[in-house]
C-alpha cells in the first residue's frame, strides 16, 4: 500500500490513486492458437523482480502509464 508510483504527467503519487493492469505475456513456445488464448486470458508470469507494468492513474490524469517496478522491494 505504501507503494508510490511516478506518473509522467502528475508526479509521484501513492498507489491508492492507481489501478493495476495486467500485461499478458504468453511465452513464445506456446504456439497453438487455443493454447495462446488460454494463456493470455488466465496465466501470468508473476515475475519476481523487475517487471514492466501498466497502471491507470485514476486519481489524477486518468491515463495509462507504463511503469517498471521491482516486485520484491
Amino acid at each position, binding site marked *: 500500500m*505504501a507503494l508510490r508510483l511516478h506518473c509522467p504527467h502528475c508526479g509521484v503519487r501513492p498507489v491508492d490513486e492507481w489501478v493495476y*493492469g495486467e500485461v*499478458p505475456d504468453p511465452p513464445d513456445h506456446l504456439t497453438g492458437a*487455443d493454447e495462446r*488464448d488460454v494463456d493470455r*486470458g*488466465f496465466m501470468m508470469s508473476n515475475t519476481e523482480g523487475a517487471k514492466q507494468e501498466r497502471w*491507470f492513474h485514476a486519481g489524477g490524469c486518468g*491515463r495509462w502509464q507504463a511503469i517498471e517496478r521491482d516486485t520484491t*522491494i
Partner: protein
Amino acid sequence: MTRPGKVIDFDGTQVPFEAGDTVLTAVFRAGLRPWGGCLCADGDCPYCLVTLGGVSYVRACRTSAVEGMKVASHPSGGYPPLPSSTRAPTGESAVGFEMVHCDTVVIGQGRSGREAAAEAEERGRRVVTLDARAGTEAVGVYPGPEVVARTPEGMARIFSEEVVVATGSVEVQPVCPGNQLAGILTRRAAEGLAASGVDLGRVVSVGRPPEGVGHEPAQGRLVGFEGEGVVRRVVTRDEETGAERAYPCDTAVVGLGSGPRDTLARMAHGLPGARAVGSAAGHLDRPPVPEAGVVCPCSEVTVDDLRSVWDRGFHELELIKRSTLAGTGACQGAVCMPHVRSFVAAGGQELPPSFTARPVVTQITMGEAAAGWYHHPDRRTALHDEHLALGARMERSGGWLRPWTYGDADREYWAVRSGVSICDVSTLGKILVSGPDADAFLERIYPTCISPLRPGRAKYVLVLDERGYVFDDGLVCREGANRFLLTSTSAGAGHFEMWLSDWAEAWKVDVRILDRTASWGAINVTGPRSGELLSRLGAADWLPPFMGHTEMEVAGVACRVMRLSFTGEISYELHHQASESRHLWHALMESGADLGVWPHGLEVLEELRLEKGHILVGVDSLPDSTPRRLGHGWAVRMDKADFLGKPAVARTSRMELDRLLVGLEMDGGPPPQGAILRVKGDYAGFVTSTTWSRVLGRSVMLAWLYARDGAFAGDILIDGRPARKVAVPFYDPEGSRVRA
C-alpha cells in the same frame, strides 16, 4: 500533603510531582516501587506500563505528569481487561492528524541525530527531527520512505527523500534469578533519576557504574538478585575463586553494556533513501549465554523454557520465539532478543540474525491509527437531496447511493406500468468516443456489428473481456460517422473508461475518449404516458422511435433523448448537464402531477426489469458467464472478422454447454435469491433474481440451470415447490408496449 495543582493519582495514592517529571520519576520521587524488573526509564523495557485515560500499555517513563492525571499500574500477573463499553467514548476529542512533506527525517536527537540533522540542513534540505524524549515518537519506517510519528498534536505521516535513523543504543538487561524484583535500574535510568533529585537509597551497582549516583560497586560477575518483591541484595561471584557475595541494597543498578537500539534501523534496512547512523548502526556484542532467570518478561519465559523447547528440536530462533512466545509481548523482544540469540548460538549455530523488525515501535491506539482515514466515499447524484425530500431510503449500489424505495412500492410500480414514472439513472456509465478510427475501434471492441448502425440509432451490446466472459452491457449510440456515445452499467462505469482506453492504446487506434458519467445527469421517463408528459415540457413533436436517440430541449434543458426500455414500458432517457438535473426533475414532477407521475427506486426497478427478463450483469451473470451461458448468443456475431474475446468465444463454444441462465416461474411467493434448484433430488443450480410479479400474479425468476446428461430438462423443484422453465420475457413477450 496534597497540594492543588501538583499531584497525580497513582493507584489511589496522591503522588506529588515537580515540573518536568515523568510519571515514572514522580512515582520514584514518592518512594514507590510498583514495577518489578530492571527499569530502563527510556521506553525500551516493558516494566513501567500503566493505564491512563482508558488506554493501557502506556509507558510511565514516556508520560509527562499532568495535574489531576489518574494513573493505574498494569495488573500484575495478567493483562488489563478489554474495555467493557460498547459505545464510542463521548466528548472525546478527535485525534489530530497531518501529512508532512520534507527532504530529510532524522529519528533521534542524541549526538548522532543532531549531527545528521545539522549536516542535512547545511546541504539545504528541509529537515524534520523526531525525538521520543521530547514527545515526538516514531511509530515506524515504511516504504516511500514514510515515517509515522505520534506527536503531542496527534498522528503525523512524514514523507521525505531520506530517512536517518539515529536512535542510539539500548542497555542490555540482566537475565538471572531475581531479575523481576522491583528496585532494579539500568545504569542510565539510575543516572537520570538521580539527576532529577530522586533519592534511590542505598545503591549497589554491578558492571559499569553509574555517574552522578552515590553507590557501592559490587565486585565479580552478576549471579542474581534477592529480596521479597523488592530487591534487597545483589549477589555476585568472583570469577577466580568462585566465591559468592551478597551486597545489601535499596536499589540495584546494572551496567551490562549496550547494543544498538536498531528496531527502526532494521525496519528501514533496504529501503531506498533510508540509513542508520551512530550507535543505532552498530553491532551488539553477544551477551553471556543465559543460565537462569526470566528471559522474556512480557511472555514470562525462563531460560529453562528455552532449554525445554530446544531439547525437543526447536532450534531456529523463530521456532523458539514461536514455541515459547518469547519476544512477542509489549517490548517486542527489546529485553529478551540478545539473550535468546546467545542461547541459540550456544547450541552450536552461528549467532542468528535478529527477529524481523516490524512496526509499530511505539504503541498507538486503534483510534489513533484510524485518524486521517475515511470510509469509502459513495457518490451522490445531483438529485440526492430531491430523493431525500421525497422520503427515499438510500442504499449503496455500485459505488453510488441510490434510492431503493420512496416508501410505497405499489405506487412506484403502477406509475410505471399504467401511468408515468421517473427514475434517476444518472449513475449509468456514459462515454463519448470520437476519432477517425472510432468506427473500427468499436467494431473490434464489441461482439456485435457496429458499422451498419446509422446516426440516431442505438444498439444493445454485451461487453466481453479477452476470456470471452461478459463483464458489462450497455448501448452504443451513433451520433455521427466518427462519433459515438457508449453506455455501461452503473457499477461498471468506473472500469469501463479504463478498459476502453487500455485497448485503444494497445491497438494504437486514433480515437478520443471522454467519460461523461459524472458530468451528465440522466432521468428515465417511463410508462405508457411518458410521451404525453414529455410533450407537455416542450419536447419536439418528433420523439425518437424505439432504439433511437436525438437531441432536443425538454423543459428548456438541452437533452439527448434516448428511447429504449429496461422497464418494459415506453421509456425515454433524458441525458443532460448535471447542473440542470434538479430543474428537469422538478419540471417532470410538476407537469406530470395530474398524470400521477411518481418516481421509482431500485427495488421496483428490479421487479420491472425481471418481468422483462433483462439480465443485470454482476447479479445474474457470474464472472465466467459467456454469452452462450447467458442465453445471449444472439448478441454475438461470430461472422465478424474480429472482436475482443472472439478466440475465447470460439474456443468455449466447441465445448458442451454446462449451464444456462433461464427464466423460471412458479405459483406462490418468490423464493429468496440464492435458492437452490433441484432436479430428481440433485443440485441443479440456483436463483439469481427473484420477484413476485404484480402484473402477472405469479413469481418469476432468473436462475442458473445446470445441464444433466447434456440437456436442460427435468422437473425443477425449489424449496420443494415446482418451478416451470419458461421463455423470457415473462411480461409482454412481443414487446408491443415498448414499441407502442
